[in-house]
Each structure stands twice: as C-alpha cells, then as structure tokens.
C-alpha cells in the first residue's frame, strides 16, 4: 500500500517549476539546510520509516477507511461519491500524519522543543499531541482572534501540556501566527524544531509535509482498487495551504484521474472576503516560498475570510501553484453558504459531521457529481471531522433563524 519513492521531486533549491524555493532570512538558511539533510537521510532510513509507519498505524489509526456514501450518491443521482475518512484519524484530521513525521524528525535531530502555528487549532492540537508523546516542550502560536473563535482547541492544547501563545500583530489570525512562529524559530533554531502545518514555508517544508501526507492518496488508491476494482474518475480536496490536497492527489497524479482543488470563496469572489489564492491571487513571495498569494497591487498581503478557520490563509502550497499552472489541477470554489449546506447534507444523509474545511470539498463534489454518470466515481478527501466547528455552525444557525 505504501511506497517511499519521492515522486515529482522539486529541484535542488526546492522549486516546483519556479514556485517554492527558500525565501528565508539568512539566519534560517543554516537550519533549513540542516533540516533538509536530516529529512533526506531519515527518508532513506528503513528504521525511521518503520517507526513512522508504526505510529501512523497504531497511534494515528491508519489506514483510514474509504467509504462509499451510498445514500448521498443516490440522492444526487450522479457519480458515486467515495470519502477518504481522515476525520477518523487521531485528533480528528489529516494533520496528525504530518506532525508524526516532523516530530520523529525533530527527535532524530535531537531537538527538545517544538513550535507550531495554528489557525483553527487542528495543527496546534496535532503538534501538541505528538510533543506530549515524544516528551518535548511545545509552544503554539495562535492569533488572538482565532483563540477566541476556537476556545475548545486552545484548551485541548493546554491539556496536552502545550503553551498557547496569543498573537496580536497584523490581523491576529493564521498568517500572523506563522510570522510569529518564524520569529521564534529565528531565535531558537538551535534547540527548536518548527513544525509547519501545511505544504508551505521554505524548502524542504513543502516537500516534507507532502511526503508525510501521501499515505492518504496511497491508501485511497489501493483501497479503491480493492473495494471497487477500479480507480476513481476524479479526486477532490479542499485547499487551505494544501496539505490534505497534496496528500490525496499527489499519488494519483500519474493516473488518468481528474484532480480538483477547492478553494474557499467566503462571502464571494467579488470582494476581498474570501481566501481563494489560486482562483483570485497572483504569484508572490510569503513565508519562505514563491506561490500564489492574495495581495494588493503593491504586494501587501490581504486579510482573508472563510467560515472555516483552517482555510483562512492568503497563500497556497507552491506545488499546487505549479500543478495548477501546468494544467494538472482543476480549480473549484465553494463559498461559506455552500460549505454550510454541504456540512448539513452529509450530516443528515450519512451520519458524518465533516469539518467545515472538508465541507468545501464536499460542496464542490456534489456539484460535480451531479453532472457525472452513476457508473463514475468521485473520491473526496474528508480531511477532518466537524466537532470543532459546532460553535460556528450553531451560531450561524442561530443568526439565520433571526
């Protein structure tokens, strides 16, 4: 099911067709080189891989199931919708695949402390989780605004022994938390490992995080063949930074399968209240890599909006930008309301509460499935569970009632 070949690697500088790279402060160039060397060495080390797989299976609950949503597919009357159940992974989202990999690498590099940025709190929780297991100190940067919105995840992190550090600068959300984590790392890189939460940041992060997540697509591919005797016609995932998307789609890249990324259209693509970096942005440089960004005409990064905190980010992983420009990635968007409707529909039809992030993928999937034939198959990455979003949905339901 799993294989360790690094397919479609970036160039030596970490560029995917020009995107990506290492746009970092000089202080970080040394640590990044060290990290890169350690990553490649560990990737070739069978013991490291065995331990990583052991934890993915026995700790994180991999493989996650592939589930044919029969009732939903029937109601839609188009393609068969099949869900990759990352919502069942430990801590409730795909994020744990990555934090297990990075924490193991941190341990191998002898780092006693890890830091992370978080928006919705899922990556923060996944980082705090592995830090607890590996007995490492863990500080998580989180925008003060996000801390308010996602209070239960803040408490989860604290229960796991992590310190959550509020970030007040800028828009006090995810991008500012990332800035703040980078500032910490510049000063602490000797003893600290920075666990980035998505396929962004300077090389080798986008590659590394992708490699830690390709288990999703590798499993889905094998499960699809085993359970249905075929591969899907289309695979689809939501995109915040793009880690769940790359995890699912990258291993399917060389197959004859349409690959679709879904960006959050927030209140709509007309104004600025969305976070659709590929659909509405342009190439720029932020957080260590060259990629599509939402920015003004002078390169100032824009504030974003999405109902799902995990997609509320003005950039996108560089490899997605490259695949998009190469025509290997189709683009869809779903706005707040469509995501909420998809959330509700999956809950009512299949008894699964999806994360609001994943609900974006579902919204687009339902739209696309309706135009496909019942003998076709559409694979959706259900990247996380919706329990964390209950407050948001509850509030929205209340607002709509009045």
């Amino acid at each position, binding site marked *: 099911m799993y294989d360790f070949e690094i397919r479609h690697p970036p160039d030596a*500088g970490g560029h995917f067709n020009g995107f990506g*790279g*290492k*746009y*970092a*402060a*000089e*202080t*970080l*160039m*040394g*640590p990044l*080189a060290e990290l890169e060397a350690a990553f490649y060495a560990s990737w070739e080390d069978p013991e490291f891989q065995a331990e990583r797989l052991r934890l993915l299976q026995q700790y994180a609950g991999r493989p996650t199931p592939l589930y044919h949503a029969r009732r939903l597919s029937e109601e839609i009357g188009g393609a068969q919708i099949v869900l990759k159940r990352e919502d069942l992974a430990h801590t409730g989202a795909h994020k744990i695949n990555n934090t297990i990999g990075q924490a193991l690498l941190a341990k191998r590099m002898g780092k006693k402390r890890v830091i992370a940025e978080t928006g919705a709190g899922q990556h923060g929780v996944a980082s705090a989780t592995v830090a607890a297991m590996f007995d490492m100190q863990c500080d998580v940067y989180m925008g003060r605004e996000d801390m308010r919105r996602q209070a239960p995840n803040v408490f989860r992190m604290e229960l796991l022994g992590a310190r959550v550090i509020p970030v007040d*600068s*800028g828009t006090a959300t995810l*991008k*500012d938390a990332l*800035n703040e984590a*980078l*500032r910490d790392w*510049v*000063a*602490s*890189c*000797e003893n600290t490992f920075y666990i980035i939460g998505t396929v962004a940041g300077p090389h080798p992060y986008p590659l590394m995080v992708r490699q830690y997540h390709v288990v999703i697509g590798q499993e889905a591919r094998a499960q699809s063949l085993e359970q249905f005797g075929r591969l899907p016609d289309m695979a689809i995932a939501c995109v915040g930074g793009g880690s769940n998307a790359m995890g699912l789609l990258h291993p399917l890249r060389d197959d004859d399968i349409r690959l679709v990324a879904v960006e959050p259209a927030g209140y709509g693509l007309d104004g600025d209240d969305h976070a659709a970096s590929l659909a509405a942005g342009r*190439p*720029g*440089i*932020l*957080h*260590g890599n*060259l990629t599509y*960004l939402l*920015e003004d*005409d*002078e*390169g*100032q*990064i824009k504030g974003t909006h999405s109902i799902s905190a995990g997609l509320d980010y003005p950039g996108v992983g560089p490899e997605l930008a490259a695949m998009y420009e190469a025509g290997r990635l189709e683009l869809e968007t779903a706005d707040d309301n469509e995501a909420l409707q998809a959330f509700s529909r999956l809950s009512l039809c299949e008894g699964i509460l999806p994360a609001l992030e994943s609900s974006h993928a579902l919204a687009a999937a339902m739209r696309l499935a309706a135009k496909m034939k019942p003998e076709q198959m559409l694979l959706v990455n259900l990247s996380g569970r919706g329990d964390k979003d209950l407050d948001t949905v509850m509030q929205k339901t209340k607002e709509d009632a009045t």
Partner: protein
Amino acid sequence: MSLDRLKNCFERCAAENRAALVGYLTAGDPNPAASEKLLDVLASHVDIVEIGMPFSDPMADGPTIQAASERALAAGTRMRDVFHIALSVRKAHPAAGIVLMGYANVAFAMGYEYFAEQAALAGVDGVLIVDIPPEEAGDFTRALKAHKLCGIRLVAPTSSTARRKLAAEIADGFIYYVSLNGITGAEMGEISEIRTQVDALRQQAKLPICVGFGIKTPEQAHAVAAFSDGVVIGSHFVNCITAHEDNEPAMLSELDKTCAAMRAAMRKGGVGED
C-alpha cells in the same frame, strides 16, 4: 555612482577613525509627511540611511519595527511615497549613503527590474531584502546591477563558512553582520562573541562589515564600533516615534538627540573601549 557613494562613506569614516553610523527608520512611519521630516533629521546625523519599506508581514522584525510598518501602511504609505522620501533625502544629503531595506514580495510585486529602476532614480545606493538569500537572488541581483545598485548581504551567526564565502563574493557595498539569532529589537548578543565572528569574517570578505540587530545604547554601539566598519541602529531610533505618538515636534527633537548620542559613540577607541 551608488557603489562609489557607499564606498566613500566608509572611507570617510575610516579617515575620521570612526565606524559608520547606519540608521534605520520605516518609510511612512507614522505617516508619509512626518516620515520625510524624520528621515531628514536622521540623515543629518548618520552616514548611511536605511529606509524600511513597510510590509504587511515583516517576519524578521520585532514588535517595534512591526508596529512601524503597521503605522505606515495604515497611514496609506505606498511605494511611490517610499521613493519620494528617498529622493528628498538624496537631495538634501548628497553624500549620505541610502539603502532600502524590506521584504521580497514588495519588490517582486513591482517587478525586480522596475523596482531597481525606481530605486536608482530616487538616488538609492543599495538594497537589502531580508528574505531573498543568495540562492534565490539571481534575477534580483541582475536587476540591481543593471541599475548600479549595491546588493547588500546579511551574514548570521548560523551562516556556514561556505555561505559566508558566498555572501562575501556576491555582496556589494557592505556586509551586514546580524549580531544575534533573532529578530530586530531583541537583546544583543555577547560583544566578545560578535567580535570573534566579525574578525573571522574579515578574512573572507574585503567589503566593510556593519553590525546590527539589538544595539540599543551608545555604550553597546561604541563597543561594536571598535571592531566593525559600521553600526546599524534600528528599533532604538524607531522608538523615538513610538514614544511620542501624534506629537511630531517631540519625535523630531528626540530623534535628533538620540542620533547625536549614537553618532558620538562611533569614534574608535576612548571611554567605551577601556
């Protein structure tokens, strides 16, 4: 032209047996008009003016300079204001070195070529982009060179020997030695350690070496001046603005005094060295 001016700055200082004073302010902080006056005061004391280009996400800066960026952007500062301020410094202070400092995306959004052209027209001598390391600098350096602008390079305590050599090779104007692993405005590192590093760096680089990050008192500045070619003061000057919100005269006069004190600390030898 530009190459010469920075060179001349350092030669002049050496002749006067002092280190060059490199002073930083963010362009447009607290607003473009006041900023123009503040930079004029700054330029009247320092040898090299470092003009920060405000950016929404200044990842390498501490709270002081972050806030400066936020104030400047909130006041509507745009790149044409940055260039306008540079040009007015140039006009009033023909001999001053002028360096633009900032983040990649601002230059990238303009296009490196157009950015370099505008900088050169504004009388800028050199450019330092925090997040364009040598590895990614190809196009950018070419654009600078085409307009005779110096590409300033940073060297950090974490920089390997190979990287130091690389920086020394491709840098123009001067080398900026970051005196600590951290962000602007943090606590300065151990003086003796910095000295060791700078001395070693001299073996690899023929360019002047300036030291910055975390220098806040004339005493510290004086100590660094003893073994470096230049001392960069940033957050400490920006604090003159922070301390007098909305009171422009007070800002200007405090900046004037603060700069003078630092300028005095640049002399080599003397009290600070004992």
